[in-house]
């Protein structure tokens, strides 16, 4: 190879390394104000570079030196701390179970350097082996949504790709994506509008189902897969929204009626039971890890909209037998939230069966619209439950889900501005306590989160990248070629 061919690469390498460095000075005792707040967070070694901006209008240039407790170092400099992906992964891999120390120096607009007290990020020894996360990007609005779409984002990089955008299917509105323990080939997405239906893949190919039947009260809405991948527990909800006039709140969605159903994806049959299809509200089901029971939320019906603040959901369970395809004959109350003037929503058991995470709010069933919504955790072996205060904020913290590999969970929090829900990750310790959550890394976090006018709705982990046969989906939706489900009542 002729040596001159290397010149451009040498120049590039020099440019990459040639960022301005601060003169030596002793660090101050104050840590830098960075966005996102990554100080003292615990991260998986596989995570994308934890780039950050200096939260100071007077900052002109930042220089960061990262040193691993177990060796290795790297630098980043520029308008913000933008770490090289390859070097970052080498450093985190070398420091699993140890700390990364961030030494930050900032040059202000007057040209003066400041060196801050170093801060650390702890690299967890619990791996996060999933490919990434999947979420719906949607304006956290009221009744009208501009462009919505289901997207997947790699955890090890900044790559985000659409799974399905509503523009691709001519303006149909998309509901959340539910997958079976992060499996890319087992998921359901509900599509609303003309020719709307539930797009489903149970691992044997795409199907497009009409889950609204005369015997059920609405479309399959909130879903959760049975571990065997054949059944999905849904709640069928008729949702109405009201709006507040006071300073503190915006919106109050509530169910006119909601019942539980289980969809058999092989026979396209819905299984119902009068026990979970009552005038009361049954919603947000989740199968237990062994698939033998369903956690769900249950509230007594109250006169709405006047009684919106009296709508309190308890956390209940009911058995489900796969062999007989039938619900159990008894509903057990796991948490009587009504008794403490609270309301439970979105139960999510960890896949190893150790914990159950849920939301607790003052009332209602839509925690993303309640600033008081907090994450709670129950130790399923002892039944003890507590607020995850180490994770919760003054704003809505909701839409949590567990990593199929265990150890990690994600959730949606509105803590940045009270309106837009963003994606946070935390690691759960064996005693049920959680580490300080960190915001989904972005190449330039300040620019990204300032410009983002959407929420990360209903996020979940995915084990591998989802590849959707778009021509097939388009043709299914366009032709309205939809299969009506039948209903089997279990008693």
């Amino acid at each position, binding site marked *: 190879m002729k040596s001159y061919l290397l010149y451009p690469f040498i120049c590039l390498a020099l440019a990459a390394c040639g960022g301005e460095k601060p003169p030596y000075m002793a660090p101050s005792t104050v840590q830098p104000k960075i966005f996102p707040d990554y100080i003292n967070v615990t991260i998986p070694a596989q995570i994308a570079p934890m780039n950050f901006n200096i939260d100071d209008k007077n900052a002109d240039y930042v220089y960061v030196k990262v040193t691993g407790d177990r060796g290795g170092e790297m630098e980043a400099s520029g308008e913000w701390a933008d770490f090289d992906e390859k070097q970052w992964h080498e450093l985190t891999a070398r420091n699993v179970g140890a700390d990364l120390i961030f030494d930050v120096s900032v040059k202000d607009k007057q040209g003066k350097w400041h060196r801050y007290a170093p801060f650390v990020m702890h690299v967890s020894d619990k791996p996060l082996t999933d490919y990434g996360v999947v979420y719906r990007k949607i*304006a956290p*609005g*009221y*009744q*009208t*949504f*501009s*462009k919505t*779409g289901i997207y997947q984002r790699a955890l090890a990089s900044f790559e985000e790709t*659409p799974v399905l*955008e509503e*523009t*691709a*299917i*001519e*303006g149909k509105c998309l509901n959340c994506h539910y997958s079976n323990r992060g499996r890319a080939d087992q998921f359901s997405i509900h599509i609303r509008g003309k020719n709307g239906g539930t797009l489903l893949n149970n691992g044997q190919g795409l199907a497009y189902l009409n889950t609204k039947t005369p015997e059920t009260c609405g479309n399959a809405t909130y879903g959760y897969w049975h571990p065997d991948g054949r059944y999905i527990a849904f709640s069928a909800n008729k949702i109405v929204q*009201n*709006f*507040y*006039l*006071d*300073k*503190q*709140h*915006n*919106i*109050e969605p509530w169910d006119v009626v909601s019942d539980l159903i289980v969809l058999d994806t092989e026979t396209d049959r819905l299984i119902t039971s009068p026990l979970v299809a009552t005038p009361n509200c049954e919603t947000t089901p989740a199968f237990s890890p062994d698939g033998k029971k369903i956690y769900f939320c249950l509230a007594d019906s109250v006169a709405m*909209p006047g009684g*919106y*603040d009296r709508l309190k959901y308890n956390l209940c369970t009911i058995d489900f037998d796969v062999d007989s395809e039938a619900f159990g004959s008894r509903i057990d109350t796991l948490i009587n939230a009504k008794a403490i003037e609270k309301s439970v929503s979105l139960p999510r058991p960890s896949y190893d069966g150790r914990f159950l995470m849920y939301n607790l709010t003052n009332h209602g069933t839509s925690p993303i619209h309640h600033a008081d919504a907090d994450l709670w955790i129950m130790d399923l072996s002892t039944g003890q439950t507590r607020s995850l205060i180490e994770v919760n904020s003054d704003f809505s913290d909701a839409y949590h889900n567990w990593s199929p590999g265990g150890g990690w969970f994600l959730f949606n929090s509105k803590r*940045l*501005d*009270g*309106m*837009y829900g963003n994606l946070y990750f935390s690691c759960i310790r064996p005693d049920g306590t959680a580490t300080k959550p960190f915001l989904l890394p972005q190449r*330039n976090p300040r*620019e*990204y989160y*300032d*410009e983002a*006018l959407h929420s990360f709705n209903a996020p979940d982990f995915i084990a591998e990248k989802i590849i959707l046969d778009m021509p097939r989906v*388009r043709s299914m939706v366009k032709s309205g070629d939809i299969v009506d489900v039948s209903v089997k009542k279990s008693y």
Partner: protein
Amino acid sequence: MPKEKQNGDASKPSLSLKYILTFLSLAITVLVYYFWAFPYRAALSYREQFQLFLTTGSYFTDLASRPGGIAIYIGEFLTQFFNNFWIGAAVMTGLMLLFIWFCYLLINKFAPVLPRFSKFTLSLIPFISVWLLYGNPDVTLCFLTALLIAITVAYVSLSSNSDKLTVAERYLKMAALTTLVYWLTGHATIVFTLLIIGYLCKSHNISIVHKFFFALLSLVWLAANICIWSYTLPYPLSYQLIGIGYLMTPDTLCVVIIVVELLTVFIPYIATLLSQRPLKAVAPTLLVIELIAIVILFPKAYDKTTYRLIDYDYLVRANNWNGIIKASDKHTPDLPLTVSTTNLALGMTDQLDSRTFDYYQNGVEGLLPPFAKEPLSSWTTGEIFFQLGMINSAQRFYFEGMEAIPNYNKSSRAIKRMAETAMIRGEYALAEKYLHLLENTLFYKKWAQRNLELIKTANGVESHPLYGSLRNRMVDEDYLFSEGELDKTLGQLFLKDPGNNLAKQYLIVYPLLQRNLNKFGQYMGVVTESLPQYNPLLAQQAVAFISMKNGQPVPTNIVPPMVEQSLRSFAQAWTSKNPELIAPHRRTLYYYLLSNE
């Protein structure tokens, strides 16, 4: 057959013709500028509010990553100048003149020997079609930008000496430029492709077989570009064929766009034909035809009703209340949006409680229109809520309006108002987010920076003349919005702040528009308890009407003799059942109460 002359000597105009051409060019420039700067300035504001052009790198890369994205980026960049109609009109004029110029250059390329005046008049045909096209407020500037890019590249390509190129090089050039133009402009590439095919077909040195294959391969290559992109673009193929970004409604096929493109392509061919068969008086004939076309097509292109709505929307956005009343005095407001904005303007100028029935009314919906998934209506209603002090509802309606923009754009107007509603509500983190966003714009940057300072100043918002007073007007307790009970909310607003003149007037007029005089009596009682001297003309008329209806004497301490006299005059006319006698009373409260119209 006349021989083509590269320098166009034959087309050199005489001195007088040169003056005529200069005069015509100047006249067009002045006319186009005047058109956009004065009678149709609202259309500029209308387009500007349907985008949020950011100067950030990610905004560019997001758009640049798809075909037509560059044209959208440039179009949106230019549209942001519509925020100031003097500059906006200059931008519009500049683009249209550029379009005439390139059309002229293309005609000159195809038919250099054609007289200059004929070329000029021919180049006006596509220009007129574009001018008429932009009567459709849903057509964005991105289309004109795309078209300009396509014809510029076509012109540059045709101007470069291709004679020395081998056949393979010619095909490679076509393929490369088609791909480039498709990435730059999207759908408008068809104009480029047809122009280069046409130019080649015009040549006498190339065989018919070569011409045929060049045309075929050019079209196939364009189709291949479209197909390849359709695999990665999150749009159906039909959107690509229609032109992504050209219209605010991405799924609508705009026939006029096709007509403009066809004219842009075929006028140079027509010029070639005309140059081959010189006809006398081509240019004057064309000018007459063009004028006739404008006279016939203009009213259809610039639909009066649509532009009346756009004018009202512009006046609401500018909070030009007197302008609205002036417009309503000129033309009776008879559309839901014009009725509600007229009522808002009357309220903001303290005339609602005396002049409501001077204008057509359509019930309480004319005061507080119901929600509609449509930006203009949402924002107008949002403005009513904002001025009333229903800040949550204002935020909701501005948000909904923005989300209802059919091409999925965000809105500078809505974001600005939402930053204000967030500040008023004390949601400073949210306000900061919106203000940071506006910091990345050209026209809202300084405003955003001022307000970022304001929220960081202790008691800054509280002591702000507008934001502080609106914050004080907001109801405090948990309270759900109910469309059927908005009069109760108006009552709450008045009780919270009796100085809220708008809420007071809306509260009084609301039951009158419902023809519910009992409720009116109750609400007047609530108001006069706080403001004993309050006795507007409509209250006097309502009290006189109630007294007469109940056969009681009209209370002279409340109702002045003139009002009583006007009621008696109406009563005589009404009982006569003579339409001619009733007609002068049609714009009165009495007529509204009795007529059910």
